[in-house]
């Protein structure tokens, strides 16, 4: 039980990543695949945040006296996550744009049927 509570965020993060990857690997529909990618992203973000998280820690700002650095959450992962979210959104937006265009060309979003570029 202790273990679970210790690692719950990691478990959650990696579950999200694997679920997302599974979707990417297994699903035929492009939109689903994009959602999968998005889930992977979320999982990674959760993972990064967890890295810097200290149970009961405070924001890393010396706002009042008595705050020690050990009790603060690591700010770096938060910065990373922010960047990663931005990148994720950019990819997501681009992917959706391309999905629309692809649908216009093929009339389908089934990736198993979109196989003109091969060999």
């Amino acid at each position, binding site marked *: 039980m202790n273990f679970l509570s210790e690692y719950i965020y990691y478990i959650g993060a990696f579950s999200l990543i694997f679920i997302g*990857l599974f979707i*990417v*690997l*297994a*699903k*035929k529909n492009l939109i689903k*695949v994009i959602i999968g990618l998005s889930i992977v992203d979320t999982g990674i973000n959760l993972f990064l945040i967890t890295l810097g998280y200290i149970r009961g820690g405070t924001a890393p700002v010396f706002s009042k006296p008595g705050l020690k650095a050990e009790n603060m959450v690591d700010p770096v992962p938060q910065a990373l996550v922010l960047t990663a979210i931005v990148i994720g959104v950019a990819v997501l937006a681009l992917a959706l744009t391309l999905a629309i265009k692809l649908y216009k060309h093929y009339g389908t979003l089934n*990736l*198993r049927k*979109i*196989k*003109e*570029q*091969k*060999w």
Partner: protein
Amino acid sequence: MNLSIILAIAFGGALLTYFSGKISKKARDVLAVLISLVIAVILAFFYNTSSREIFYTGFLDFPLILRIDTFSWFFAFTIAVIGSFSIIFSLSYIRKKGNTDYYYTMMLLVIASMIGIILSGDLVSFYIFWEIMSWSTFLLISYNRGPAIAAGIKYIIMSVTGSVAMLVGIISLYSHYGTVIYTELSGLLYNASSGYTIFIFVLFFIALGIKNAIWPLHVWLPPAHSEAPSPFSAVLSGTLIKIGTYGIILLIYVIVKINVFLNLGEGIVSARYIIAVTGAITILIPTFIALLQDDAKRLLAWSTIAQAGYIILGIAYGTSESVASGMFHFFNHAIFKALLFMVVGAVEYRTNGVRDLNSLGGLIKKMPVTFVGGLIGICGLIGVPLTNGFVSKWLIYKTLIINNSPFLAFAALLGTWGTILYSYKLLHNMFLGQLPEKYEKLERAPFSMQLPIVILSLAIILFGILPGLPLKVINSIESGFGLEPLTINIWGITSDTGTINMLNLFVAVFLIGIMIWLIFKGSKKSAGIGQYDNYAAGTTVPKNKYHYSVDFYGPLHRMISPYLRDFIDDFYMSLARSIKNLGNGIRRIYTGDVGYYAIYIMLFLALLIFIQIKWKLW
């Protein structure tokens, strides 16, 4: 005079020719001929000198070296002369075709790179020039389009195969001995294990053997020689394949050294014997295949392979007589094969590209000079006494018999008799027999074609009667290799086991010929009649109905043709096909389905983890 100047003239001249062609056609023609002649003349002045210079230091850590000695002079000079004759021959040959600037540039580039190969003093520059030669040749072989395209691709693939093998050899030598300069490498292999020596030998022989068209590496040659423009076929056959010969001599006698070579293996499994036997096979099989050819240039191409077999046999056999014969035959073959290709080229030029032996005939009346050239050429090819080919072949037979290798001698001799058959067929089907009506109005070959034909014909006779001239040079090369020199007179060779005296023979033949001619002239004069005024045992011979040259050796053909398909070629082709199929199969992993691609990524990840768990790599 600097050696690098020759190369500068050769390579610079090639480029200059291209640009001069944009300004004036005449200037380009003159320039092309001039450059090739200038190279030959400059090289002539290097006779009996030896020098060595570093000409370029910019290539990685390898100083590139040029050197000249009698050995390289002999090859370089022959190549330059044959090259300039071919260019003179091209003047009118190529005028009818397009892309003339390109043609001359490539031709000069090929000649320049060949001279570069010969003059280079280290293996890296050898290789660089070798590759330049390969691709420039490739660009010229396909010049005629049509079937020439397949010929070109075959040539370049084999050539690249060879040169990569050689590259491994060169670098391997460098990594073992830290040098690629001939003089420093020379003899170093004495201490190497025989396994390593054989490894080096095999690698180099793939490259050199492909260039020299040794069976079973010959398959590029017949199509390439027959589809290339004829003057270039002369260069290809006369000189380019001899670069392979040069390389083999260089490898055996300069780098590996004769004493190591002769001790490589024993008896029948010695390197010497194996290469010699390969040479003998190279004589026999292509000779018989040449018999079956109906295309003049293809016939000559197969004949080239066969003659290259004599050269290899001579060089690999390793006695001083055999090596002399190999080198002498190289020289002779350069002359007569260039001549024969020019003869065929002249006919091809006048008949607008016909070289099918079954549709020509009777051209002797129309192109007498060309015919005489052809006659002397085939005499040289067969080795009729008093032509140059005789002496070199005599030398090889003799040394093989005296040194107790009758089977090799038998192969060589039998090859000669095959040569008689196919070369007579060549001459007969082109120049003798019945003249087809469409060629009634044929003109003589233009002067620029006749000139090289005449000069080369005279050279054949000259070196046939006075073989001492080239043999003297060859002798001094041989002493440089540490072989015992021959006893040479201007008219032939003296030795305990057999002497040859061409001048005696010449006088005898000449006097007897005169005598018979006098009897012939002195007796009742014969009446001249037309070609079709024939005795036909009471029937009449219809004109233009039959072509007697078709299926000239029909009976023999029927007998031997089932055994003489070019199995080696089939083998290579099926190899190519299977690589193609393999490629097509492998391509299918890129299925087009992105799901698979994502799985590949995951599998790769899994593979890496698996490897780590299994073998603990890091």
